């Protein structure tokens, strides 16, 4: 809100500018900018969405008067004539009735001419150009009161009557702004005569604008349905000083004050003569709201005790009317201009802000300490972050919106459930919510490889989105991508390219850390991963992820490996202690190597071996030559010192197994 201080000073005596702006900031109207124009200082206050009264300078003056306990000086007015029950100049169609809270108009004879210098100067501080005395007065009064007004050339209103109705589909309307023509719809409220639209809620019409040829006007002021006004303004893309005010919850009580103020000025500056009584539509006149305010609410919400006298003083300064109080309860009447005040909590804020938020003490939370209950869905993310970062993998965060071409590019249709599309993304091409973290991670990896990073290892934790059976669902996922060398070149390293088994090792370590036993089975086909270079990660019978080499066409032929984990599912699985300890057997183990030929599936061989005897404590694949595997078996017992004789029966079973696999 632009507030020229010379102008504001006409309604209230002002303190020093710094005191003024500091205090306004503290009571809810933050100083945004301050500038000097000639000798005048203009402050710009941040507007509050709920304070329609602060869209007028008198409203600002009212705050200053309350904050500094100074008298408010309202400007002179000229009383309106009585209401004509026949309402000769106004008719509201039933279909538009709900969109209008109050519409008040009267007919005046005027002398249109230039405005005096002081008026032109005041409008200039708001960057509003001077048109003529009549138009300037309506603009001036809007800035003073926050209540928009409009004047029509009466002789341009066919039938001499304004008709409030809904627009027709595609109805054309020429606004007062030269060249700005819009097409209306039934959603728009139109102020019309019996021939054509003459004004909208946020802007007047060109045809009935007041010019030097105008001799009579219809002066109006109104309060409309705020949501409808806002929607109209957005739909038609017309933003005016009127539209920003009509989007707020205005006080219909201000309509009369604004008209009376305009009337005074019109009589003074345009020799106005009243030609009609008031035509008015005001089906539900506003009544002052009353509230029983429990004083204990102040300490209950504010944590500060404020004496009754202080409370009543503050509320009086804010123009609340205070009735008799009984047993800690006050009967208060809310000024109608304060459309933001509804309940007791609002009154508490009023008292506190004038008393001073800086007086609120600082007190630690007390009482029952709630049990710590961090969501497992959050804890698991933190665990995965710790584990991956400890393995030298870097975290990224990316946008979940994908280019629609990503789906066919990664052939993601079919493998994942149906994707979710955005209705109104700014770039209509980027309108798909990712069903997997794969595209973003792979693209980041390739970008880093092109930037000659020798070792690329990235992970992301984030939501993926699906549409299953028309039910929108999101899932928590983790993705891991690696490419390049396992180590940087250095005097003591022997860098090797990272491959499928490198990423598999990371995943194995991750699940060890998460306390989950998993197995890897050949995957028959993931659309973005190479056939026969790709596996599913299983826990018992649950598929919890997939890993493999990304199709080289998707990676500019860089060898890139990717793993995808469903954290949502993983979260639901029973875990074992990820940090298992046991006392080492005091007996020595027996360690033997054994070769197996033609091994095509290591994990099934491993299963067969370990089921041979509980004495086989460890199986390690220590060497591989083509299809020949050298396994190192550790035989160990907690009870006895094993001897060759104890192992002999296992050896013969192993021998049988070996002959079968040969």
């Amino acid at each position: 809100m632009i507030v020229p201080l010379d102008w504001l000073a006409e309604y209230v005596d002002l303190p020093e500018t710094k005191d003024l702006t500091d205090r306004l900031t503290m009571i809810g109207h933050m100083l945004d900018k301050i500038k000097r124009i000639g000798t005048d200082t203009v402050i710009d206050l941040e507007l509050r969405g709920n304070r329609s009264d602060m869209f007028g300078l008198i409203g600002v003056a009212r705050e200053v008067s309350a904050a500094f306990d100074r008298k408010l000086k309202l400007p002179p007015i000229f009383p309106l004539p009585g209401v004509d029950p026949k309402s000769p100049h106004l008719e509201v169609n039933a279909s538009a009735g709900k969109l209008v809270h109050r519409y008040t108009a009267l007919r005046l004879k005027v002398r249109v001419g230039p405005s005096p210098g002081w008026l032109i100067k005041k409008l200039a501080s708001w960057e509003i150009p001077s048109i003529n005395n009549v138009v300037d007065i309506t603009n001036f009064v809007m800035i003073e009161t926050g209540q928009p007004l409009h004047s029509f050339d009466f002789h341009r209103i066919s039938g001499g009557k304004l008709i409030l109705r809904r627009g027709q589909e595609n109805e054309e309307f020429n606004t007062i702004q030269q060249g700005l023509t819009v097409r209306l719809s039934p959603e728009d409220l139109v102020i019309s005569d019996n021939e054509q639209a003459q004004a909208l809620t946020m802007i007047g019409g060109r045809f009935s604008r007041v010019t030097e040829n105008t001799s009579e006007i219809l002066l109006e002021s109104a309060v409309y349905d705020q949501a409808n006004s806002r929607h109209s303004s957005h739909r038609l893309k017309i933003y005016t000083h009127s539209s920003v005010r009509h989007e707020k919850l205005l006080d219909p009580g201000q309509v009369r004050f604004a008209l009376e103020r305009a009337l005074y000025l019109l009589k003074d500056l345009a020799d106005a003569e009243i030609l009609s009584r008031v035509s008015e539509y005001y089906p539900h006149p506003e009544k002052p709201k009353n509230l029983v305010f429990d004083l204990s609410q102040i300490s209950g919400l504010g944590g500060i005790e404020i004496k009754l006298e202080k409370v009543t003083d503050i509320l009086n300064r804010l123009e609340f009317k205070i009735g008799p109080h009984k047993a800690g309860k006050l009967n208060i009447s809310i000024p109608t201009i304060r459309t933001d005040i509804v309940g007791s909590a609002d009154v508490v804020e009023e008292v506190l802000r004038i008393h001073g938020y800086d007086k609120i003490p600082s007190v630690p939370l007390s009482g029952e300490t709630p049990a710590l209950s961090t969501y497992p869905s959050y804890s698991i993310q933190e665990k995965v972050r710790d584990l991956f970062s400890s393995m030298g993998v870097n975290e990224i965060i990316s946008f979940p919106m994908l280019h629609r071409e990503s789906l066919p590019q990664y052939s993601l249709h079919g493998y994942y459930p149906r994707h979710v599309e955005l209705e109104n993304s700014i770039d209509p091409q980027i309108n798909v919510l990712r069903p997997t973290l794969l595209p973003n991670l792979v693209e980041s990896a390739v970008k880093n490889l092109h930037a000659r990073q020798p070792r690329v290892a990235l992970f992301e934790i984030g939501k993926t989105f699906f549409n299953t059976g028309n039910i929108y669902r999101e899932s928590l996922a983790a993705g891991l991508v690696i490419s390049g060398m396992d180590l940087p070149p250095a005097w003591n390293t022997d860098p090797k390219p990272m491959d499928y088994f490198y990423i598999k090792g990371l995943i194995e370590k991750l699940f060890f850390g998460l306390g989950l036993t998993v197995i890897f089975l050949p995957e028959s086909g993931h659309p973005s991963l190479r056939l026969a270079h790709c596996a599913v990660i299983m826990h018992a019978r649950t598929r919890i992820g997939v890993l493999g080499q990304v199709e080289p066409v998707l990676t500019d032929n860089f060898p890139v490996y990717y793993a995808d984990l469903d954290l949502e599912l993983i979260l639901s699985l029973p875990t074992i202690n990820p940090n298992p300890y046991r006392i080492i057997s005091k007996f020595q183990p027996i360690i033997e190597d054994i070769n197996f030929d033609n091994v095509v599936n290591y994990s099934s061989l491993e299963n067969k071996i370990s089921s041979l005897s509980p004495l086989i404590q460890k199986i390690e694949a220590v060497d591989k030559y083509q299809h020949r595997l050298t396994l190192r078996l550790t035989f160990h017992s907690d009870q006895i010192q094993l001897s060759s004789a104890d192992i002999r029966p296992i050896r013969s079973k192993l021998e049988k197994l070996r002959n079968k696999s040969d």
Partner: protein
Amino acid sequence: MHQKLQNIKNEALAQILSSEGREELDRLRTHYLGKKGVLNQIAGEFKKLDREQRVDIGRLFNDVKAAISDAFNSKNVGISGIPAGGPATSGSEIDVTLPGFPHPVGHLHPNTVVAREINAIFTGLGFSVADGPELETEEFNYTRLNLPPDHPARDLQDTLYVKEPEYLLRTHTSSVEARILAVHRPPYRFVFPGKAYRNENANASNTPMFTQYQGLAVGQGITLANLKHTLETFVTGFYGSSAKSRFRCKYYPEVEPGVGMDISCPFCNFKGCMVCKYRGWIEILGAGMIHPSMLEMVKLDPLKFTGFAWGMGLDRIAMTRYGINDIRALFNGNLAYI
């Protein structure tokens, strides 16, 4: 021959593992791997085999020899903790200033680091960490947050809707607050870092996704004074003990009374600079007492239960911490920035 080799290996491994002391180990090494050792003796017998057998047995022989050597080496480590003949025992000096082994280091995202730092402060005050869905309903994103259907914040232009009525990408993490209110019974204290979305093109200061950090406490007897203490603890914990903060009145639909919290400008310390627009203060968060109508919506009596809530942007804090001046850098997966 096959069986013989296998037996030699098993015997050797068992003896090596059960050996005690370096002397015994050295003796075993000579016995198996020495010039006249068991393995060399058996190698002498290969001549008797035909060619095919020789290849097969030769391969097994190599395996056995390697396994035994490995066992010696690892047993050596087991005894002394240092590999025999390694640099430490070689007697010659090492250049201790040479770079160590370059174990790869994984970096966490700046937002993660900052969130963790803040989590640590609030968990110290008895807060737990919560989260919630990013694909939300209008009910939890708006209606339950005191934003009725005609509220300007619900305008289509700011919200990313999905192609199904009522569903949207949450526009703030206050939706998690609405869900906590709906699920938990007081008293409780939660913080919730998370992503939110808006319908905007990406530029240096705005992106369609951004990160918020919010929190709330609900119980009996909770007041603005508790909010002040909680947030002051955060400010001094995060920005340092010399950081000043202040409460001023501010409007948010979800709270009443509403609070804007400023901290002393860390760039000029009240002297006035471009960053704080010569105010000396920088706004860091919005807060207030949870609106009574939101408590009523979850059947809590506002006269009995009260609560406070606050929210702030996390991206800006992370950018300041890491000296990043383009918000897109946080989300484009470019390692150079990390």
